């Protein structure tokens, strides 16, 4: 059993990794067909991952309701929202789900008037917290954070039209910050991160990195 549980996955990862890395260098028709088929399979597998996410979210709120955790009543609204959307989605404007998707159904209405405004608003709350942090906590504690704040102020002024009014040099300085020091540092980080990604990939292929196996035997 250990063979099926541990060895087989490691062999699969090794074979797939080596095969796909070599495929890149072989311009033969057969190798291209392989790439097409395998990429199609992989995106189909990835589609199933959506259901893992959905299941864990349903499960999380179900346990809250079952155990009557503080504030469990709100979890009912998750189920309410999901079920009503699913019902209208499967009804598909009276044509049912085995037909093609219809336009302008109640399902779309729920998206445009619940998901869009609520989703857009939740993340905009952060604007207020940034303003309050600017007032209360963004401090030039060290030389490093002083440089950071000065660069930030120049970029913030240079990237809005008002910077032009204060001085024509401010947008020019902001452009320079973006295109020279910022570019250099971001390229350095990118090179470092890419080396890290290659190292991780190699470790996966050769079975050193096994965290994808999860816990247990």
């Amino acid at each position, binding site marked *: 059993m250990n063979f099926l*549980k541990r060895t087989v*996955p490691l062999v699969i990862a*090794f074979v*797939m990794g080596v095969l*796909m*890395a070599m495929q890149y*260098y072989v311009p033969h028709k057969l190798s291209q067909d392989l790439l097409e088929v395998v990429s199609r*399979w*992989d995106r189909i597998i990835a589609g199933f*991952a*959506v*259901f893992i996410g959905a*299941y864990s979210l349903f499960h999380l709120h179900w346990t809250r309701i079952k155990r009557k955790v503080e*504030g469990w009543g*709100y979890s009912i*609204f998750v189920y*309410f929202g*999901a079920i*009503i*959307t*699913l019902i209208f989605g499967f009804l598909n404007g009276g044509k049912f789900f085995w037909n093609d998707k219809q336009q302008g159904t109640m*399902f779309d*209405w729920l998206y445009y*008037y619940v*998901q869009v*405004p*609520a*989703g*857009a*608003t*939740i*993340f*905009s709350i952060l*604007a*207020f917290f940034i303003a309050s942090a*600017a007032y209360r906590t963004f401090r030039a504690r060290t030389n490093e954070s002083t*440089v*950071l*704040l000065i*660069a930030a102020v120049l970029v*913030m002024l240079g*990237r809005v039209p008002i910077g032009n009014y204060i001085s024509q040099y401010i947008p020019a300085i902001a452009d320079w*910050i973006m295109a*020279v*020091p910022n570019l*250099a*540092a*971001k*390229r*350095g*980080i*990118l090179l470092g991160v*890419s*080396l890290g990604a290659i190292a991780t*990939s190699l470790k*996966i*292929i050769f079975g050193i990195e096994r965290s*994808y*196996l*999860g816990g247990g035997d």
Partner: protein
Amino acid sequence: MRKDSNFFILVGTIGLFVCINIFLMASGKLPFSSDGFGIILGAGLTLAIYSFLYKDNPAFKIAENLYVGVSLGYTIIITWFNFLKPDLYDPLIVPMFSKAAEKAPQYALIFPSLLGIFMLLRFSRKLSWLSRWTFAFVVGLGAGVSIPRVISAFILEQIKPSLHPVFSGGETILSSINTLLIMLGVISVLIYFIFSVEHKGAIGKVSKIGIWFLMISFGASFGYTVMGRLSLLIGRIQFLLRDWLNILQ
């Protein structure tokens, strides 16, 4: 006593919201249609979420959980119409069971479907080990596909523009200085992230330069992040003022 005042604030706000909407509908500023009611719902949810800024309250929590539920439902339905139906149901399942189908079923699709189902077995206690096969396939494939492409796109392509003559004539002194600065920045940041050599002497000095480059670039990111978050807020207020209250043109 304090609980009472909270209750009155909540009821008062909801009452005000209802009155405003009745006025908007009656004066014809909002159409009496599904879109009109949709805008009212959207405005209500927006305000409910912003009420969190005053205090954590039931209206915020209801709006947030409702949003999570609806987007979950949307995800599942979209996955059905955009993925399961065209990629598996139509080419595989339908031709297998219907004689009228023009095309033969694509049996090869059984393989990825099985691996996909194995992944879902993660939630079963007895068979969760099968999900490891799927993860091994996905992760191994990802690793193999990434290595040559990351080397080519993120390392070679990124180094190429830095291998630039510093003086090739025709350029201004400023652009030569910028070329040198970018060069210095990339190298010093790389050295800053080298950990197996102690940061002393010349290496220490260069890695100090790296810190300044990093700090300026973080400053740029900081400024841009502030800008981005504010844009989201501006967008929401535009929605409230234009689409709902009809104040802006």
